[in-house]
């Protein structure tokens, strides 16, 4: 038990000034206070961490679609459910397609890295975008490792060749896509430039 006690040291007499009250404070009060504080902070911290992890997983991917991956798993499911027998070469083809897509994404992320960093540094884009980008880099890396694992499961010892082959497939697919876009571009430009062509592709005045 402690009490507040003060000494007077005035130059003139005290004439019934307000008396200082003493309050009885238990020994455990400060301990209780500190413990409540610490416990509430700990609860808050764990809650907050769980929330951020949840948010991160709910963030949309930077890529518009995940078709290659979904197709592979759909085919795998189809072959495992035994209702329609999917030939193993089709499954292999789906895996190669998926691997090529994963390589395309790693390259795309790497080439965009300086630009995304600059966007974030200039404040042109919000915090969320930056988080999504960092998340995506990790996810794509994980995805490629999964591909290699599946390849190993499908054909033991294949992964070494698998990576090299996937690279070639990735570039060749890009080339073919660009080549096939030519027809569409012709139409768009013809409209934009107000031009008409005859059947032989010659300009009609």
């Amino acid at each position: 038990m402690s009490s507040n006690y003060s000494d007077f040291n005035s130059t003139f007499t005290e004439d019934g000034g307000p008396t200082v009250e003493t309050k009885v404070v238990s020994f455990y009060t400060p301990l209780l206070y500190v413990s409540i504080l610490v416990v509430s902070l700990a609860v808050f911290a764990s809650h907050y961490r769980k929330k951020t992890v949840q948010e991160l997983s709910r963030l949309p991917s930077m890529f518009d679609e995940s078709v290659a991956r979904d197709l592979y798993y759909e085919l795998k499911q189809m072959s495992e459910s035994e209702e329609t027998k999917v030939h193993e070469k089709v499954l292999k083809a789906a895996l190669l397609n998926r691997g090529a897509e994963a390589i395309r994404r790693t390259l795309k992320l790497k080439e965009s890295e300086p630009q995304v960093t600059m966007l974030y540094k200039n404040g042109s884009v919000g915090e969320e975008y930056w988080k999504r980008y960092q998340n995506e880099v990790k996810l794509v890396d994980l995805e490629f490792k999964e591909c290699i694992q599946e390849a190993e499961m499908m054909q033991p010892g294949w992964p070494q060749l698998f990576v090299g082959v996937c690279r070639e497939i990735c570039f060749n697919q890009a080339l073919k896509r660009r080549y096939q876009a030519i027809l569409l571009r012709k139409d768009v430009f013809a409209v934009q430039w107000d031009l008409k062509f005859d059947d032989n592709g010659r300009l009609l005045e």
Partner: protein
Amino acid sequence: MSTDLSELQYNPNSKLLGLPHSSEDVTMNISQINKLTQDLVAETNANFTPQPHAESTAMIKKMFENGLKQTQQQKLADALKSINLAIEMAQRKRTTWEAFAVQLQELQFMLKNRVDLCLVQGRFMDALQDLDFLQNTGLNSSDVFIRKTDALIKLKQYEQARAECERGLSLDPTNVKLKALLIENTRRLAEYNGDI
């Protein structure tokens, strides 16, 4: 964000996949998988490598040379058809995993010839798109710029022609043909802008 693949169809005989009414991305991926399946079916070696196949190279080359011969004989329309066939054959016969460098060079070479044939026959838009393709795939030599400027002038897009010509000159400042094209384009631009 997973795609809706509930309607995925599989044909066990042809081993091809199909999905009606699907988006552009899904159709693209399915056709890519189908091509890979066909390549894998034709491939006997389980440990295949990116090594290009010699027979494909020979066939494509033969078709292409056929086209060149027809060009020399001035049968230009037929020549164009032959070269188109050669390109189609390359797209069909070559497996997706054959060396990219080889496939790219082959395609670029055939396209360069196609461009010249198109320009001669007055098919400027076709030539322009092929030239755009060549530029996008890394071919930045002066003759690409010369032909592109020419095609753009013929299509009356003088502003773009000027931009292309200037870019060509910046990569090859002493090119005589480009300088001549620039002068001609400036004249046409002045007329377009009513400055003459």
